[in-house]
């Protein structure tokens, strides 16, 4: 029987300290309060003083409440029984199903040995030209949607998830609006994907600390399934809430903040989660699609900024479209040389021209006369936005490439495109 401590020394924000011995760093404890039980995790040891972050938050905890150390760090049950189930951030059932206790595995485990990684090679088709053609998604990629709040990022996430050919989906929700949670549930259900989905959901109404476990718990489960050969797609929305929870704890514990209150290890913390994305030789893979909302549409805000430095690109969602600038898939070159000969050239060439279109647009808005060249660019830009950027377009890559050539031929002469002559000879549409 483990010792029970009933003298809480201090309660500051969501962090409590108790005098205890035999405790290990990272261990879990259970606190019984008048509002019910909560888990807490040891995040500092100083002599016999033990600090814990309380998942249910500090509110209402009494100095006389009982703290019982469990003698192990956070764990999650791993088995096929997880499929189709919905849990909270601390792994308790959110649906009406039973609590799972078999085959407990630790979360937040060590990282994958880089020497055992393989170069990702499978394209994930989405039917969205801004993704398939310009920023190809690749199996085992880690890639967030950067978005202002109010944009349909969860819709986009769900759409990609439903189109992607994966074996299973793990949805990690942090600070998720209840409506969004229901939206995901309904969408997955309608698409017949619910039975191959596992959800770890922390909603906006739940205590903030509980969201801290969501990425680790989701990824620990994903890792086990991937090792068994499954192609797992992990959706993490919204990672900004996760970062904010970390910020709150850091400030409570008086850590020196580095940038706008965020702890100095924000980068490492985010990286240790995103780096779980992997393609395992002879087994499955983990692909991570996240959402990072940008406070104030500011991509230099510490959360999107640090994220951009970690992930393998991002889809920049703005005004209901994936923006060509700011969006990037860093793994695209692993696959887009095997799709079609014109893929790479068209991808770069069309964006270069779109950049010129933006310049002409600016000139136009300042009231300058449009040269013949400007007019061509304006025509081009409009078609580009309509046929490539509009999210309602849903076509296979090959069709999107054909459309690309059509847009070019409708707007320009061959040599104005800056594309290699050999490709132009092969793909330039015949005049009809």
């Amino acid at each position, binding site marked *: 029987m483990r010792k029970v401590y009933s003298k809480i020394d201090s309660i500051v924000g969501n962090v409590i300290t108790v005098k205890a*011995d*035999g*405790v*290990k*760093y*990272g*261990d879990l404890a259970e606190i019984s309060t008048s509002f019910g039980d909560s888990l807490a995790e040891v995040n*500092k*040891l*100083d*002599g016999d003083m033990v600090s814990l972050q309380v998942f249910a938050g500090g509110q209402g905890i009494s100095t006389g409440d009982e703290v019982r150390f469990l003698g192990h*760090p956070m764990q999650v049950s791993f088995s096929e029984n997880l499929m189709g189930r919905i849990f909270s951030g601390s792994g308790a059932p959110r649906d009406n199903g039973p609590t799972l206790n078999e085959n407990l595995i630790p979360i937040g*485990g*060590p*990282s*994958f*040995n*880089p*020497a055992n*990684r*393989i*170069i*990702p090679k499978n394209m994930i088709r989405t039917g969205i030209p801004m993704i398939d053609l310009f920023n190809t998604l690749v199996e085992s990629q880690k890639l967030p949607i950067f978005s202002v709040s109010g944009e349909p990022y969860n819709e986009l996430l769900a759409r990609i998830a439903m189109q992607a050919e994966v074996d299973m989906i793990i949805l990690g929700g942090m600070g998720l609006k209840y409506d969004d949670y229901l939206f995901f549930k309904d969408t997955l259900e309608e698409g017949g994907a619910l039975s191959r989905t596992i959800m770890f959901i922390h909603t906006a109404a739940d205590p903030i600390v509980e969201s801290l476990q969501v990425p680790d718990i989701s990824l620990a489960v994903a890792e086990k399934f991937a*090792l068994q050969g499954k192609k797992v797609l992990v959706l993490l929305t919204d990672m900004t809430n996760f970062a904010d929870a970390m910020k709150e704890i850091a400030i409570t514990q008086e850590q*020196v903040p*580095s940038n706008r209150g965020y*702890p*100095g*290890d924000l*980068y490492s913390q985010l*990286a240790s989660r995103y*780096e*779980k994305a992997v393609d395992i030789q002879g087994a499955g893979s983990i692909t991570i699609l996240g959402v990072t909302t940008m406070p104030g549409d500011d991509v*230099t805000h*510490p959360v999107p*900024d640090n994220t*951009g*430095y*970690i992930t*393998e690109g991002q889809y920049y969602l703005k005004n209901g479209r994936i923006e060509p*600038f*700011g969006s990037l898939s860093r*793994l695209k*070159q692993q696959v887009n040389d095997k799709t079609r000969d014109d893929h790479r050239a068209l991808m770069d060439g069309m*964006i*270069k021209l779109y*950049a010129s279109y933006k310049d002409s647009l600016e*000139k136009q808005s*300042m009231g*300058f*006369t449009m*040269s*013949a*060249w*400007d007019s061509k660019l304006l025509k081009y830009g409009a078609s580009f936005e309509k046929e490539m950027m509009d999210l309602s377009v849903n076509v296979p890559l090959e069709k999107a490439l054909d459309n690309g050539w059509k847009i070019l031929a409708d707007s320009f002469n061959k*040599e*104005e495109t*800056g594309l*290699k*002559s050999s490709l132009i000879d092969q793909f330039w549409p015949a005049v009809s």
Partner: protein
Amino acid sequence: MKSTGKVVGVNGNMVTVEIAGDIKLNEVGYVVTGGTKLKSEVIRINGDRAQMQVFEITKGIGIGDPVEFSEELLAVELGPGLLGQVYDGLQNPLPELAEAAGHFLERGFYLDPLPKDQKWEFTPSVEIGAQVVKADKLGEVPEGTIKHNIMVPFSMLDNYSVKSIKSKGSYDIKDTIAELEDSRGNVIPVSMSFEWPVKKAIKCYAERLRPVDPMVTQIRLVDTFLPVAKGGTYCIPGPFGAGKTVLQQITSKFADVDIVIVAACGERAGEVVETLKEFPELLDPKTGKSLMERTIIICNTSSMPVASREASVYTAVTLGEYYRQMGLDVLLLADSTSRWAQAMREMSGRLEEIPGEEAFPAYLESTIAGFYERAGLVQLKDGQKGSVTIGGTVSPAGGNFEEPVTQATLKVVGAFHGLSRERSDARKYPAIHPIDSWSKYKGIIDEEQTSYAYDILFRSNEIESMMKVVGEEGTSLQDFVIYQKGELLDATYFQQNSFDPVDAAVSPERQKYLFNIMMEILGAELDLSSKDEARSWFNQLRQVILDYNGSEWQCDAFKDLEEQIKKTLAEKKIRVDERAAALMEKI
């Protein structure tokens, strides 16, 4: 006597230890947790307490856990067998680790950095009775593409006479290959490998020289306009996704040096894998052997423990200095130095040091300077020259160069390749900003000529900004043509397609050749009667030059396209500007 201690506090990756006995600053110790020994380093001593950074995940460490000290500083093992290796920040060989421990980096596993049973063909170069000091050559073994000198260990500070030396033959790195007698008559056995503490620079050379010769990267914009010298330093700051890593990857493939050390410091594991899997397949045109044979990868990626990330850049530079001692040119590419600085910041925060700007420690600047100082061109005692060139990427928060790490780095480096978000958004690669960037080194093309091209670029840029205000209609035809010349230079010379098999790497010879063509175009007064005509003529010319850049050097298509360029130019060329004519005379 090795000291011991016990854990009295844990905070993130820092433990506080109560010590019995004497310990050194930066001494390595092991925290024993549940039967596993976790490598750690002493970073502060205060009375009978030491603070140690643990090079592993600290989960599960408890109060009272024993600590064993080693009396050694954090060191690397030097000797034949380093080339082609993939190490973590503490010189653990990762492929071997995978064999021993499986897919995951289980903590507490430490393996020998150098293969113990591999035999090396040793040829002695000294005779019995010879007088030697540290770093003097005792013999050599072939390793990959180089001759690996076997030297007197750098930590042997006395004068020695050679008591015995092994004859030509094959030995492993632990075999005694010589016995050296010091001034007091002690005989010390020496093998082919020895250790050296990573935070101490290796300075066993005669003198340091000023870096002058360009280190060719085969990137036009770099070699021609923003050169790097062998033994010099340079940095690549840029916002995320601007192309820092790709630039370093290309450089690691094509740079004209003997050895490349890639330090993947706190970045993505996937990027290292590309190098890891590609290099063994790629041939080094200079030696005909695989690129991996001239490469060492130090891989401490972002999800690996931060304390060993901090150590990793030192591990890398120490290996570089070791090979420099053999008269070789070494290039160290560190991606990203910001992650290393952040590792320092994390530790400084846990030590509760008074924070400086953006919470970086006060010693950030001097530490960065100290690291880059370890680059350099040196003359060795035997007259040979060797060099360590350091190129570091910087990942500034928010892409803003006005931040501590970028600023501290700019103070000490010899060249600055600043990447611009604007250029990368417009897919203008390499996205090095041609105007904001600078270099203090000499390139492959005479400065008078490059500055002629630069002048046109400056003018073109001015005109472009002006055009934003007064519109194209408010710009004279003459200015418009200069603007077009600048754009052409950008599109066909600065920009380079790293994914094109030909354009990815351009030899200095070909760079000079193309540059001369550019000079002819830039210096030409053109018979263009309207802006529309000018635009369409330049478009046409650009198209041909891009095709030309993509064609194999001196093949038929290359010659045809060159003819086309010349013909296109001749159609509109009236005469050549005087300054350009004078410069071209010189070629």
